[in-house]
């Protein structure tokens, strides 16, 4: 792997990132053509954009699930990503949980593959379940859970393996507004506790601002960063604050 210098604060550095998909009559270009971007470590970055702008492709590329053209790529820990790694865990919108396993079984699922797994697996799983408020649902199966509980289980399963980066692909899009807001609080709490880097793709402007420490709006073809806003601070968590409303207006003018 080629070693390239990288900004100290970045968890990812996108260096001339170009993604094409295989097609029957040659490669089909995605909107990601020569994208350059730094994604900072130990904060929550939310990525917004209209449908088809390449944000989900970008997230999958960050996870190593989609490989870019070799004219550039995604730098993670100073090396180009060449595939998925257990350091970077992704949570999908759906089909995250295995229906034949209980909540406890799902959360502990990844530990069996880890060489450095904690000795007392049951205690680790129990601690993680109480951390995400699912201690009482340990023996339930996924079909017995609400949408929010399912996503909390998926988050717990990802976090128990202590990844460096958590990627979230529209994880709360199927939830109602009150559940969504509870999940946003949970994401903040978990990020504060673990200090891991999180990148979340969403369609929801409110979610992007209230969850993200940094909000990126992707758009155009080839895709570029149309808005790069700092969304830290309590005023950005208040949907009626002037700062929040100004940023919301700025983003909506760009997207719509």
């Amino acid at each position: 792997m080629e070693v390239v210098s990288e900004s100290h604060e970045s968890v990812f550095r996108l260096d001339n990132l170009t993604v094409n998909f295989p097609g029957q009559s040659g490669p089909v270009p995605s909107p990601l053509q020569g994208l350059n971007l730094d994604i900072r470590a130990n904060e929550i970055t939310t990525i917004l954009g209209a449908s088809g702008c390449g944000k989900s492709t970008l997230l999958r590329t960050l996870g190593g699930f989609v490989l870019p053209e070799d004219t550039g790529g995604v730098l993670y820990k100073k090396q180009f990503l060449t595939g998925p790694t257990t350091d970077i865990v992704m949570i999908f919108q759906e089909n995250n949980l295995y229906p034949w396993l209980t909540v406890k079984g799902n959360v502990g699922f990844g530990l069996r593959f880890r060489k450095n797994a904690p000795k007392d697996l049951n205690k680790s799983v129990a601690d993680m379940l109480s951390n995400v408020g699912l201690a009482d649902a340990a023996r339930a199966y996924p079909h017995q859970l609400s949408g929010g509980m399912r996503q909390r289980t998926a988050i717990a399963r990802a976090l128990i393996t202590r990844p460096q980066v958590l990627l979230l692909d529209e994880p709360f899009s199927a939830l109602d507004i009150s559940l969504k807001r509870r999940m946003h609080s949970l994401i903040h709490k978990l990020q504060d506790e673990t200090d891991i880097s999180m990148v979340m793709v969403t369609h929801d402007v409110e979610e992007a601002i209230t969850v993200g420490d940094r909000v990126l709006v992707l758009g155009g073809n080839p895709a570029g960063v149309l808005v790069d806003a700092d969304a830290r601070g309590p005023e950005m968590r208040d949907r009626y604050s002037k700062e929040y409303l100004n940023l919301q207006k700025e983003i909506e003018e760009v997207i719509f």
Partner: protein
Amino acid sequence: MSTAAWDKAAPWVVGGISVACVIAAWEIAGVAELPVTTVLPPPSQFMAMVIESDFRIGLGSQSATLWESLTATFVRVFGGMLLAFVAAIITGAAISLSRFTTWCISPFLYLLAPIAPIAWIPTAIVVFGINNATAIFIVFMGVYFILTIGTLAEIRRVPAEYGTVAGNLGASRWQQWLFVVMPAILPGVFTLLRTNFIAAWMAVLVAEMVGLRDGLGAIIMMGRNLFNNELIMFGMLVIGVSGFIVDRSLALIGNRVLWWRV
């Protein structure tokens, strides 16, 4: 009775009444000595014959109890189905994990699948002789190809995210197969096995009719050879009831043990 309880009991109650009506009409036909009851003797007639012989069927050293016949047929059918189930899962794994294996195995699967299991009987008798191995082989051939093709379809139905998530959490390809694909396909493959039970059941009965000297199929052949319609009808009744019980048992296992759907 509450609506829910009636909904649950209705199929059994109505089904039971339906069967009872047919048996009653059959018995009335027997009492009226209709000509058709010579070929189709009513239950009271053939059951009396079998009870009188203490459920021992056949003549001299070739006779067997009903229990022995049932055991012989069940060993063959379940032996063949179990082997086919394991082989189908192994073939499915081999095909899904390696393109080279797919290219090697696929032509045989699709070439051999359309051959009816009965067509294998002469070959099986030559290779294995007239014994249990022949019947198990016939059942295996009747189930394996269909089950393997079905297993491959089930594997294709497993959501891609399942494997991606497992790989992302550190599972190797083999571990992904063992801990994700396998449990994901098991209920579907088991349902296929259940639907193919009828085919396996018919295959073993045919094998017993044309070659083997024991088992439920052999009861029918014995009845034919002895011109004993009571024995034929009793054999048919036992085959029907046994098949029904096994099918319900498999359905119960599918619903209680392998209940999830992907």
